[in-house]
């Protein structure tokens, strides 16, 4: 059994107001070494597939069709043993 850990982030260059708010919050409690924060999403997807190549293909398709919006988001993922 395999599991995919998918990360979806706003593309570079697109302003992330949530990341900015988190950065402001961290700075307000004294963390002065931050040069940027971006907030994304992580999804854990349990698969009934056992073949890694098939899992890779399926997760790519999931990301392209629904999990990420290519207009504003990029994605990456790792396939792990569940």
């Amino acid at each position, binding site marked *: 059994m395999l599991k995919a850990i998918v990360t979806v982030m706003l593309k570079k260059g*697109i302003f992330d107001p949530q990341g900015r708010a988190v950065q402001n919050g961290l700075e307000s409690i004294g963390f002065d070494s931050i040069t940027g924060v971006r907030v994304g999403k992580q999804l854990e997807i349990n698969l009934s597939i056992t073949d890694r190549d098939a899992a890779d293909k399926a997760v790519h398709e999931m990301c392209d069709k629904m999990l990420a919006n290519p*207009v504003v988001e990029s994605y990456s993922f790792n396939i792990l043993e569940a």
Partner: protein
Amino acid sequence: MNWGVLLFPGSNCAEDCFHVIDQVLEKPVKYLWHKDTDLGDVDAIIIPGGFSYGDHLRPGAIAHLSPAMTAVKKFAEAGGLVIGICNGFQILTESRMLPGSLLQNRGLKFLCQDQTLRVDNADTPFTSDFDEGEVFVCPIAHNEGNYYADPETIVEMEENGQILFRYASPEGEVSDDTNPNGSVNSIAGIINRAGNVVGMMPHPERSSDHVLGLSEGKKVFTSMLKHLEATHS
């Protein structure tokens, strides 16, 4: 002239849209269900606002994959008039029927307020009852209304007159001060290249009945009606 209002689980502006067609325009209107694969005999489709599928993942991300949206795409490809309002706009960008995407408001707040809009293209089936440059008040109510498209797409849309509405001052001035959510070029509403699919974040259905105090939004629907009557006669 049959109108259809498309319902998803979580749509919450459908009754307002239905009311405008039924009671203000006094035209036949029916609800369409997100599982419908056949939309039946409709001449125009309204995709209303709300929180389709709870806005999970991204607003419109799950809704745009529903069976009815496949039918809506076919309807639009055949030239049918489609307007998406608020969440409906988000669904249309997710389905790529309209360019760009709607990001979280730059101020991170859900905005629920009256907003002044300027009409930038009055030569479309959705805006013909407005004058070019006309300013009117229309409510907004959204968390993800910050319109984004890459710079090349924006240039193309501007050149093609695809920007229908912009957030503006009561005098019709467009500036960052009158931009509530951070939208590129203060964009509040757009039309596709073919000229038959519109998306807008403001709610014309909430400003279409004089008892609500605002009625200029009605011109969106009366424009559509005129177009339908002219093309179906």
